[in-house]
Structures are given as structure tokens and as C-alpha cells.
């Protein structure tokens, strides 16, 4: 039984979507952004966020750089690449066809 806050493999989609609207977020900000925009429903497990970010970086969807913030803290910030934008589009359409299908089942069954 999955937990209600489980992302069910849609972590990539959420990260890409948020980075497309607000490029230059670091890992912690990404996590809180997902939490906030989903109305505290979706929670990202901290242990799985970074492996996912590095995997997407290796796939060439996002790129990262180290910056020093005004507060003097260093942070690794992420933004979308051109490939990432394409990936986002295909993930979005996959997601909407998936939810549409699930909805159909819910309506008719």
C-alpha cells in the first residue's frame, strides 16, 4: 500500500516542471517548492532527491553549477537544458494520458 505522499515515479516530472518555471533552484528549495505547490500533499524523500537530480544531470536533462549565495553559503543550483525541455513535454503528455485513462476507469467501472 503506497503512502499518500509517495510520488509514484513522477519525481522526474515534478522536478523538470518546477525547474522550467523557476530555474536556478538548489536541492532544498526544489524539495520545499514541490511540497508548497502541492499544498503539502506531496513530500519528496530527501534520500531520493539527490540521486534523481544526478541521474537527470547525467542524462543531460538538467545542468548544475555551484554558486555562493548572498548569505555566504555555497549551493548547487539546477536549470533545464534543451533536452530537458523536450523530456518535460513528453513526460507531461505521458502523465496526462495516464491520469485520463485512470479517470476513465474510475468513471465507467
Amino acid at each position, binding site marked *: 500500500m503506497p503512502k499518500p505522499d509517495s510520488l509514484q515515479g513522477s519525481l522526474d516530472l515534478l522536478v523538470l516542471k518546477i525547474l522550467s518555471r523557476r530555474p536556478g533552484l*538548489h*536541492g*532544498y*528549495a526544489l524539495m*520545499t517548492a514541490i511540497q508548497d505547490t502541492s499544498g503539502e500533499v506531496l513530500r519528496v*524523500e*530527501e*534520500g531520493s532527491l*539527490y*540521486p534523481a537530480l*544526478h*541521474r537527470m*544531470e*547525467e*542524462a*543531460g536533462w538538467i545542468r548544475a553549477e555551484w554558486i555562493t549565495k548572498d*548569505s555566504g*553559503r*555555497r*549551493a*548547487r543550483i539546477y536549470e533545464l537544458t534543451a533536452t530537458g525541455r523536450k523530456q518535460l513535454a513528453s513526460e507531461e503528455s505521458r502523465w496526462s494520458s495516464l491520469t485520463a485513462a485512470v479517470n476513465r476507469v474510475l468513471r465507467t467501472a
Partner: protein
Amino acid sequence: MSLWSRIANAFRSESLNREIDSELESHLEEARAAGRDLQEVRRAFGSPLRHREQIRDAKLLPWLDSLGADSSFAVRQLKKHKVTSVAAILSLALAIGSCTSAFRIIDAILLRPIPIKNPQNLYATSREGINFSNEFSNFDGSAYPMFQQLRAAVSDQAELIAISYSERMDLAFSSDQAVEKAHIQYVSGNMFAAFGLNPAVGRLFTDSDNLHPRAHPYAVISYDFWSQRFHRDPQVIGKTFHLGDTIFEIIGVSEKDFTGTEPGTVIDIFLPTMMHPSVTRDDSTWHRTFVIVKPGVPREPLRAKLEANSQAFERNRAKSFVGMPQQALENFLNQREVLEPAPQGVSGLQHDNRPALAALAILVSLVLLIACANVANLMTAQASARGREMALRISIGAGRARLIQMVLIESAWVATLAAVIGTLFAAWSAPFVVSLINPPDNPARLILPADGRVLGFGIALTVLVTCVFGLFPALRASAINPSSELKGGDDPHSRRRVMHTLVALQVAFCFLVLFVAGLFVTTFHRLAHLSVGFNPDRLLVLSTATPSPQLAIVWQQIADHLRSVPGVQKSALCDSALLGGNSSNDYISISGGRPIEVLAYFRKISPGWLDEMQIPLLSGRDFLPSDSGPSVAIVNETFAKTYFSGQNPVGKTFERAADEVVVVGLVHDASYRSIRELHLPTVFIPFWQNRSDSEPKLIGDATFIVRTAGDNPLSLAQALRAEVPNARSEFRVSDIRTQLELVQDQTVRERLLATLAFFFAAVALLLASIGLYGVLNYSVLERRREIGIRMAVGAQATDIVRRVTADIFLAILGGAAAGLILGIISARSLQSLFYQVKPTDLAMLALPSLTILAAAALASLPAVLNAVRTDPVQILRTD
């Protein structure tokens, strides 16, 4: 790009770790700034090591990462057992080096396609059938008029190319008058274009440079000659040189890597075939015929067409034959045309050394297997010490595949280090071995490039070797059952059984190498001590030529003049030295009968030559200066046996073509062209003798034989070379050799085989002994508690020795027996390389057996002493 960055990441794994850690650090700081409890965040992250591991798996290739880790672990392992590792690496290096140098030589002579455009379309022609000596043979020489006829006949299906046998000739560049030697090859004008070769400088021959006999005095030089002789001077075009009585002009330099079509000889100068002195003769076979088959043309009809044309040509020519037995004529006319692929070119070196090289390849492979067995044994012994480590690794979750990988990587390190050292060894030894093949006068040159082929072979060999000796220990290590291994093992003897099997294998291979080496050494020994029928000591052979041929009397005057040089005892003349490579034969008949089907061999000599060569006169007399005309001959014993059924032939006559010849003397047999074959029926005739129907003959080249007083005849070489032009200014000595060298050249191949086989036998014995020592030493160490207990309860030293060595000597005996059987089987296929040696001789079998037993006894001595000296008290206390 991603793959590349993942490979690159594997090599910057430390900085990757730092990056992951600092990102985690920055996350924690953000969390603290947001007011969260740090402990809770850390808990949410889980183990930082696992976190790091997950990211690393995403960032780099996990297998490459683990490979790197295993690799550095393997190096640590090798460093830990320094002595064993060095022994393993060095013994393997010796074997890999031997294999690599053998490969380089075999590749250069037999396997490597010559650097032309389409070597796979290149074929060589030859004719096979029963030859004049009544043996089945294959000969690839052809006469130029026949070539022209064949070329025209098949021009729509194939391009025919004539390329002469390379000759080492004297020439002088007009710029500096000194005489020098160069390898010369006459080629038809279409060769360069058909081979797709381009000029490096100037231009190359075309068919229009090869239209009329003696009308095209042009030369193309090879890139190699251009580099060595002219230091790549582009001004070389237009330079001229004298060769024989012709002045040639250099018109171009051929493409860089092309050195002719004869592996073993690097051609210096190419000349048009039309400039060859025998180009119009239909009875002089001085060139090979190569064929480039056009795409889509089937081979067999082409071959049949060539055969029909060449047979027609010979039938036409045979009409003028006189004095040939009917059967010989029929055999001659029914020769079959052979069309064989020749992407590697064709050379005598290939033909002469193919079986020897094959034998060599087998010997080095055996040495390699022995070395592999050695290393496998060393690794198995080490693996026993690491059984617990492996068991522990499995217990905490290492996969079998990962364990195999770990052990194999260690093997790969050993093999790679050995390959590197071995390659260095080969870089030195391959040219060294080639220099052994070479007769000193005519240094055959083999192009031995260290290119992709050699690299590929080296890598393939390394991988193969790794698998041969590494896979077994690796599979064993991975098959460990942790629970029983940690308790001490189910079957403590299994490892020893493996090692004993390997020892038996080693002994079998070692026996085989020793056995074959013994046969080669004995062959060489027999040949080297063969009587040649004359005394070659202190004899100098001076091949001499003059551009304007002279009467025999002029030659005789020079021979007399040479006798006045201080240090010269005797001097005489002949057409060509015994064992010098030239032979001349003819059919004879007796008292008007039909020509006899056994060929007689002729040699022209001056009076005193027999005495100088110390060929004993058995009956009759030597020639006299007054013996002119065609009528006299001196024959040898074999001649008397063959044609006069053993009667004294002095005073009898025989006919050669139209001439009647009187035998005036009988001499002892002497080797004519090969020390190996039975003595040939030989006829000596006066040097100045002419056929009855011809004018007094002018002679362009002949050979002076000089016997010196001193033991080193070559010390007179310079003086004699200078003295010949002093006697007659236009005469030139083209070559000086000692008769002893000519005799020794006959056994070059056997000497090479004997030397190398002896070397490999020594290496094989050394490796097998090291292996035996290692295994015995290991088993004594492993059983030291058992030995200690046995001694404590009163076992005698002899009993201990028997227990320690019984198994292994059984393995040795088994191995030797297997080796013996293998040896007798394989010796049969090597028969052509042996001379008067029977593989089944008791001495041939006893020698390797005794050597191996002695080596085994010696190798086991330290371990046995160690076992006997075991102090039971000390052993039982420590454990």
C-alpha cells in the same frame, strides 16, 4: 557524451565524493536555516555512505568503478607477495616474449599481405608435374616469351605481371665509381599500376617503358633504398648507374611501404623486364608470373586457359629438343598449371622455412602453456591462503560474478605486466633471430613493423593467457562455500589434486619440447659432421665478372697471377663453386644408345682444381693444359655406378648431345649442390672446353678458388679483390666468400632450429622446475602439522620423504608418459625437418626422460629437506 562523462567520472572518483558531500552539507545548512531539526533531516537522508553510493551509481559506470577498485586491490595483492608475483610475471614474460617474437617473424614471412591495393586478388602461377630428376615437383619460374603469350591470351580476364627472382648484383653509381651491391628485380611495366602504387618522387614504369628488348635503360628505386642510400634526396631523379654493360637512369621512387613481392628481401632497384639479358629466350625461366584476377572472373576456367596456353607454348618449343628421353619429354609437356592465392607475395624464404616456422610456433606455444600452468599453480597456492577472505566476502554479500572479476583482474595484471616486459623482449629478440637466418653475405631483410597487427596479437595473447591461467582459480574462488570454508574446508586435498594435474601437464609439455629439441639438435649435429668429399678449410671463392667476355686463356692467366700474391698457396678456376647454388645438368647416352633418364651434373674446372679442393683421384689423371676440345671428362664414383655399373670408366666414352666424350679420370664423390642429398653423378670437364660445333667461347663470369696458407682466408680477401683488376683492368670481383661459409650455409635452417629449440628446451625445463618447486614447497607447508605429528609419533625421515613426494612423482611419471606419446606422434609430422634421426631411437627418448627426472629431483630437494628438518615441537606449539 554522457558515456564519456561517466567514464571520466570513474577516474575522478575522489573529487566526485567531495562534491556529493558538500551538496549534502549545503542541504543540511538550508534545512537548519529553515528551522528544521538536523537530526531528523539526517535520519531522512539515511546512511550518507549509501546516499553517496546511489549518486555514484548514477554519475559513473558502476562496473568501471568496481573495476578500478579491484584493479588497485589486485596491485596491492601482487605487491604483498613480491617474490611469487615477480616469478610469475617474469616466467610469463619470457614465454609471451618468445611467442610475440615468433609471431612477428611468422607474420612477416608467411601471413602479412604485401602493401598493395588488392592483395586478396593477387595469385601466383606455377607448374607442377614430374621433373627431369623423375620427382614430383612444383616450379614457379617461367620464360618471358611464354609470359607475353599468356598475358595476351587472358587479358580480358586477368592482368598478368612478370616479376623476376630478386638478384643481388654489383653496380656503380656514376657519381661515385665504387662498386656496391643492390637487390634488383625486373618487373613488367604494368606492375606498379596493377598494384595501385604511386610514386613518392618522379614517376613509375608503365607498359610503354617496357616495349622492346634493351631499349629502356630506366630504373625505379624503392623508398627504402632511397632513404638508406640517398637520404631521401629528391635530386636522385636523373642519377645514373652502371649495371653490367648498361647505364640506367633513375626515373622515380616507389611508394613508401612497398618492398617487392618477396618477403625476406627488400628490393632496392626495379628494372623493366625488357632490360633482362634473357628476355627473348624461351628456355630461360627467370621470373615468376603473378595474376591479378579481375572482379567476377571464376578461377578454374582462367587456370585451364593458362594451362592450355603454356602447354601449347612448351609443345612448340619441345620440337627443337635433342637428346631427351621420351618419358621425360612427356612428363614435361603434361605439367599442370597451378594458380594459388598469394596475398603475402612469394619468396624462397617462405617456401624453405614454412615447416620450420610451424615447428617453432608449436614449441613456443608449449612453452607458453608451461608458463601458464606455472602461474596457475602459483595463483592456486595463493588462493588457498585467501580462501577465508573469499568466504568472508561471500558472507557479506559479494556476488559470484564480482569475485570472478576480482580474481581475473589480478590475473590480468600479471598477464599485462608480463606482456609489456615480453614485448620489450620480443623487440630485441625478433630481429636477433632473423639475423640468425641470414647467411652473412646476403643479409635477408625482414620488415618487422610493430603495428596494429602485432599490437592486436599482443592483446589477444594477453587476454587468452589471462583466461587460461586465471579463469580456473577465479571459478574456484567463486565456488567457495562460505560456511564450510570458514570451518576449514570440506576437501583440503582438492587443491593439491589440481596442482598435481597441472604439474603432470607441465611435465608432458616439457617432455615434448625437450624431445623435439633433442631431435633438432641431433639433426644439426649429424649434418654438421657430414663429409662433403672435399676440404673446405682455407679456401676462398672469388666470383668474378668482366663486362666484355674473354677467352678461357685470359681467365687462366689471372688465376696464375693470383698465385703470386703472398699467402696464396694454390689457385684454380671453375664455372661456379661447389655448394654455391648453381647447377648445370644434361642427359647423356652411352655407346650410341638412347638418352638415359638419370641426369648427369656438370662442372667446368681448370687443371689443378681437383688437387686444390683435395678431391682424391682414384684412377686415371687430372686435366692437362693440352686437353682442349670437347672430348675429355673426369667423372665421380656415383657416375661410374650409375652409367657404367661400377666398372672403372677410365678410357670409356659417353655421348652428350652430338659430342663424344672420353673419360680420362675417376674421382671420389663430393657434394655438388646440397650436402643432404645422395651424391649426384658428376662430370668435370675442362674449363675451356667447347662444344664441337661452336666457335671458341668467350666467358663473362667465372669463379677463382684460392687456397690460403693462413688459417683465416678472409684476411686475404681485400688483397685479392684488388689484385684481380691489377691483372686485367676490366675484371671485377663481385663476391668473396669462404668455401666453409658455403658449406655452413647449407645448414643455416638446422642451426637456427637447433639453437632456438635448445633455448626453448632450457626455458621449458626452468619453468617446469620452478613450478615443481613451488608446488612441493606449498604442499610441505600445508602439511607441516601432519608431518610434525608423524615425526612426533616416530616416523622416519624416509617415510616423510616418501609421503611428501609420492603423489607428485606419480604426476611426473604420468606427465612424462603422456609427453612421450605426444612426442612420437608429433615427430612424424616434423619428419621433413630431420636428417638421419629416428624419433623412436632409444637415445632420443632416454635423453629427455633423464633430463626431466634429474631436474625434478633437483627442484624437489629444497622442499624435501624442509620437510625432513621439520621440528615437531615447534610446529605443534605454534598451531
